[in-house]
């Protein structure tokens, strides 16, 4: 399990981020004191750091620079300063990404996973869907030696349904997820995509896997 270190002085935000990221399959650690912060980050043996820029007594950008001197640890900066100059400065100090408060949580999640996939060599680019395997890099579903290619939207929908396996997912929820990842589709397109996805699953002999719950949404069983 990948370990993420949260460096944020707002206790509540830290707590909620921890809950959310743990739900999404990461191990979470956070700093409680902000003295000797650079050393603490390096000692934490994390795979990624979420770093708030406005910390008590120290400047996040300075910390970022110090960490970068000795380590290539992925750093995502979280800030409330929403302007180009700060963004550019952070990137110059060696941060990998920059998100502004209030952040879009799906985008943050996507940035974390792409960063982790890029930096870890043993990175897993396949998601196990029990009866089939979802290949992230080729965007295909595989079953034994058969494989079917998915379009961008179908791929995203299936990935989301796997994450929410055995739970009913409403159409609105799927739409919101797709929009957050920059596919701005409408209601009809979603219906078409779901139908095609179901068809492709059936091609692999996976009938009844994607169920429609009338008036509620869809469920992957």
């Amino acid at each position: 399990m990948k370990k993420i270190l949260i460096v944020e002085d707002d206790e509540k935000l830290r707590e909620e981020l921890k809950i959310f990221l743990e739900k999404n399959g990461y191990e979470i650690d956070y700093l409680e004191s902000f003295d000797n912060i650079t050393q603490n980050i390096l000692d934490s043996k994390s795979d990624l750091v979420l770093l708030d820029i406005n910390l008590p007594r120290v400047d996040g950008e300075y910390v970022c620079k110090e960490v970068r001197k000795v380590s290539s640890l992925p750093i995502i900066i979280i800030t409330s300063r929403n302007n180009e100059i700060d963004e550019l400065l952070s990137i110059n100090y060696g941060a990998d990404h920059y998100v502004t408060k209030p952040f879009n949580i799906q985008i943050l999640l996507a940035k974390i996973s792409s960063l982790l996939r890029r930096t870890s060599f043993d990175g897993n680019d396949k998601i196990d869907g029990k009866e089939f395997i979802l290949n992230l890099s080729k965007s295909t579903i595989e079953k034994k030696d058969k494989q079917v290619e998915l379009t961008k939207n179908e791929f995203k929908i299936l990935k989301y349904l796997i994450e929410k396996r055995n739970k009913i997912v409403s159409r609105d929820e799927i739409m919101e997820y797709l929009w957050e990842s920059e596919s701005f589709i409408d209601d009809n397109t979603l219906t078409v995509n779901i139908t095609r996805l179901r068809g492709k699953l059936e091609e692999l002999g996976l009938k009844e896997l994607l169920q429609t719950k009338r008036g509620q949404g869809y469920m992957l069983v």
Partner: protein
Amino acid sequence: MNFRNFIKDKVLQIFLIIFGVFTIEVFLICFNCNLFLKIYIPVCILILYLISILPEYFIRKKFYNNLFDLLEGLEDKYLIAEILQKPNFEDGKILKEIIEITDKSMIENVNKYKYLQEDYKEYIELWIHEVKTPIATSKMIIENNKNEATKKIDEELDKIDNYTEQALFYARSNVVSQDYYIKKSSLQDIVNEAICKNRTNLINEKFSINLHDLEATVNTDKKWIIFILNQIIQNSIKYRNLKSPELEIYSKKGKENIILCVKDNGIGIKKGEEQRVFEKGFTGTNGRVSNHKSTGIGLYLSKKLSDKLGIGIDLRSEEGKFTEVSLIFPRNSYNSFE
């Protein structure tokens, strides 16, 4: 200055000279001098007097005419003290000194207000940065506790976030200092981010989105443009077509510019009001319909920020059919694109 007014100022002097000439004439007559002297002496005095005041007149005329010409050509009139040459006569020197002193005092006074405004802007920025953390925290709490109630709170939080953003840019739009950073930015990224920001409302209202021809890049401040687009999209949502709302965003290349268009199929704007929507506080016929709650700030601010960024903003509309707002990025040495 004209000669008559100049002479008017010398009335007492002229009166005294004439009085003197008259006295001399009386003496000359009393002492029975010859006719030549009786005429020569007064005429001589009068001519000498005239000769003495003429250069005085011409020097001043030249100085003041020059001063007015300079003022005419100057956009910021108060800079006159900087370019006015020092005159070589006493009252002119005094005038220049007075102008310099009042000028200095005025500039100090203006600077005081500039400083106050800058200070206020800094406070607003600080305040907004502070308030972003509780907004972010609240949104995280909602994310971890999804239900019908928190979803509604989430929508209200989005509104709060939009209003704080508006306040931030309002503060930025009023200061003289440059507060933006020009960088090469992709239109696709800018548009995606703006739409993503409004996703909840757009999905709720069942908008269909049509994005095309957005492969271009422009040199601009991305954050500012996203803010402007955000204002435009919010209007499109507010004044949407109730049956099947659509939003089309695309760009087209002109010879001298690249234009980003945001077009909706909403209720449109009444004829004659299209240009007034950029005025501060203008709510128009649509805005006064109670359920729309127009503030008259969004487009006003967009226009102000566009002016600062050096891009054009234009609006076309047909009532009951569509509204299209275009952002015009000029192609020049500072603002090129491929």
